[in-house]
């Protein structure tokens, strides 16, 4: 890495926007410097596609909007998109050989909305193939390195997004979260990430994985920066059949999340020295069991103590089916994946085998060649649980369990306002550690899967580091709220970030 990108000279996205409004800096300068930073950090392998011409075109449009006085909330802010979002101009692969070189004829709704808000895209970010994985080692285009410790994974599946934000190559990035794919890499890379309530952000143009679980969310340096992105991303979209028109009493539209944030902040301001007085934090016993490493436990406990110092009260709760979320998720997600990925047949787009006889052989061979190991495994198991004679025992049973898990959360949330715990049981593992055991990562998703099955919003906030040999490996605190509570979660995290500086730490520049 060479020079830090220009946007790092500003405290946050709000400060950056003010500087742009003052014309103290231009969008083109910011974009050029972020492009340089991204290119010189090539050894992280965070980016899959950079196209300076496309980026600079957006930056010039941002400068023109600023000059004309019609800038949006993110005009000129350098961001980047997970490669699971389709983009016009930039290639979209979802980390798969299957889609190598694919050029989408349209932009995902999230991409379109962020562009309308004025954000400038620096390019496309590496991820686990079709967003399946927790270490970014399932990308067909090589693993991403964790900027804190380049021997470690960045987490996944939004590993490139988390690494790019941790290394401050961009001010923020988009991610997708099906079973933890925003929260877990955010935790492992020491950045702030939020998965909003299912249905609040459009899935249109996200390369589909598990349609009843997939949600997009931002990763950024701070809760306030995550708010800036999420507020622009969220909103009803008629092109997504599961997009919600209303969030409780409120319309699902840009501005909703910020209003929730502002309302919560007003209450905390009024509370004075103990801003979080009256806030009940549920701490589930099952999230602090034997599988949790000591170093993560210590960092999360310290964060909980910090929240108590801010006036919050700790309440012991139980989420009795926490471990059962693993089998439920690993039936439902692969089942939906097997159905969604049936579209890759080598006919209209995607990889086609060079040698084949009839149509069936063409399709089967193209799929065998185009999909990587984890994706192939999940399609096979997903096909099995949906097949005749097994559907009731596996798929329907998992869907029933899913309802019980969602009800457990609702019951717990009558005893508390938010739930807190770890995001992942350990700090980032070494690249290559899980090579011989494909399901080891599955079990490590235990604290994130239930939330995804229930469709609840949850975020990851940096709260410390490991110890000893892991002293450069970050730990994240998970904050879980009830449906549509994104604004409040972000406000609570913001209060924590007022009194801690974990989110401001940046990895030392390394020569890998």
């Amino acid at each position, binding site marked *: 890495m060479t020079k830090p990108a220009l946007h790092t000279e500003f405290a946050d996205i709000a400060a950056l926007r003010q500087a742009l409004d003052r014309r103290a800096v231009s969008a083109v300068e910011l974009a050029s410097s972020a492009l340089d930073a991204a290119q010189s950090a090539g050894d992280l392998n965070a980016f899959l596609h950079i196209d300076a011409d496309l980026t600079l075109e957006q930056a010039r449009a941002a400068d023109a909007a600023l000059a004309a006085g019609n800038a949006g909330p993110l005009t000129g802010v350098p961001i980047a998109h997970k490669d699971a979002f389709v983009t016009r101009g930039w290639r979209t692969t979802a980390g798969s050989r299957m889609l190598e070189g694919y*050029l989408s*004829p349209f932009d995902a709704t999230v991409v379109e909305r962020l562009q309308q808000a004025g954000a400038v895209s620096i390019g496309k970010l590496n991820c686990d193939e079709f967003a399946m994985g927790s270490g970014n080692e399932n990308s067909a285009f090589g693993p991403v390195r964790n900027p804190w410790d380049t021997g470690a994974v960045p987490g996944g599946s939004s590993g490139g997004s988390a690494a790019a934000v941790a290394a401050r190559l961009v001010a923020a990035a988009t991610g997708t979260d099906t079973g933890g794919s925003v929260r877990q890499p955010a935790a492992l890379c020491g950045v702030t990430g939020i998965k909003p*309530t*299912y*249905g609040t952000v459009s899935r249109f143009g996200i390369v589909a994985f598990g349609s*009843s*679980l997939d949600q997009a969310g931002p990763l950024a340096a701070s809760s306030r920066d995550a708010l800036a992105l999420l507020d622009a991303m969220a909103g009803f979209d*008629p092109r997504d*059949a*599961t997009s919600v028109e209303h969030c409780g009493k409120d319309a699902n539209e840009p501005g909703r999340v910020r209003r929730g944030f502002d309302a919560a902040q007003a209450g905390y301001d009024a509370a004075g020295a103990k801003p979080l007085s009256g806030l009940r934090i549920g701490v589930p016993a099952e999230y602090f069991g034997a599988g949790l490493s000591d170093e993560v436990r210590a960092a999360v406990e310290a964060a909980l103590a910090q929240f108590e110092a801010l006036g919050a009260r700790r309440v012991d709760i139980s989420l009795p089916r926490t*471990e*059962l979320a*693993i*089998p*439920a998720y*690993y039936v439902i997600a692969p089942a939906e994946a*097997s159905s969604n990925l049936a579209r890759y047949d*080598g*006919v*209209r*787009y*995607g*990889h*086609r085998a060079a040698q*084949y006889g009839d*149509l069936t*052989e*063409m399709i*089967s061979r193209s*799929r*065998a060649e185009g999909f990587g190991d984890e994706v*192939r*495994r999940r*399609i*096979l*198991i997903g*096909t*099995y*649980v949906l*097949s005749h004679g097994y559907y009731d*025992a*596996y798929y*329907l*049973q998992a*869907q*029933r*369990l*899913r*309802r*019980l898990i*969602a009800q457990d*959360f*609702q019951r717990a949330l009558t005893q508390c306002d938010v739930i807190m715990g770890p995001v992942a049981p350990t700090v980032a593992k070494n690249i290559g550690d899980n090579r011989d055991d*494909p*399901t080891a990562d*599955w079990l490590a998703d235990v604290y994130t899967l239930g939330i995804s*099955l*229930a*469709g609840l919003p949850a975020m990851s906030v940096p709260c410390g580091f490991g110890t000893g040999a892991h002293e450069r490996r970050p730990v994240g605190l998970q904050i879980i709220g009830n*449906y549509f509570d994104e604004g409040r979660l972000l406000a609570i995290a913001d209060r924590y970030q007022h009194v801690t500086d974990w989110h401001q730490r940046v990895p030392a520049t390394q020569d890998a």
Partner: protein
Amino acid sequence: MALNEEDVARIARLARIELTPERRAHALQELNGMLHIIERLQQEDTEGVEPMAHPLSAIEDVALRLRADRVTESGSESERAALMRNAPEAQDGLFLVPKVLE
């Protein structure tokens, strides 16, 4: 209940994923490993519980919308070209596949 090689061949055929004999043996081992994790589902009594397809059905009635049956894209030559430029094999605006009927 463990799968055997025949099951794996059947699943692979349903999934339209070609497996070489060597890969099939490997897949058998992997699938049984995954099933071992998934089998824990059966521990829970879910008698009378309504399966949950949409997570928000935990708190509200969810009805999926149907869109109006209306043409939304122009269907222009350039739109068609943009859609077809990703095709592995195309000719005269058509996707080419191996002969299906003799």
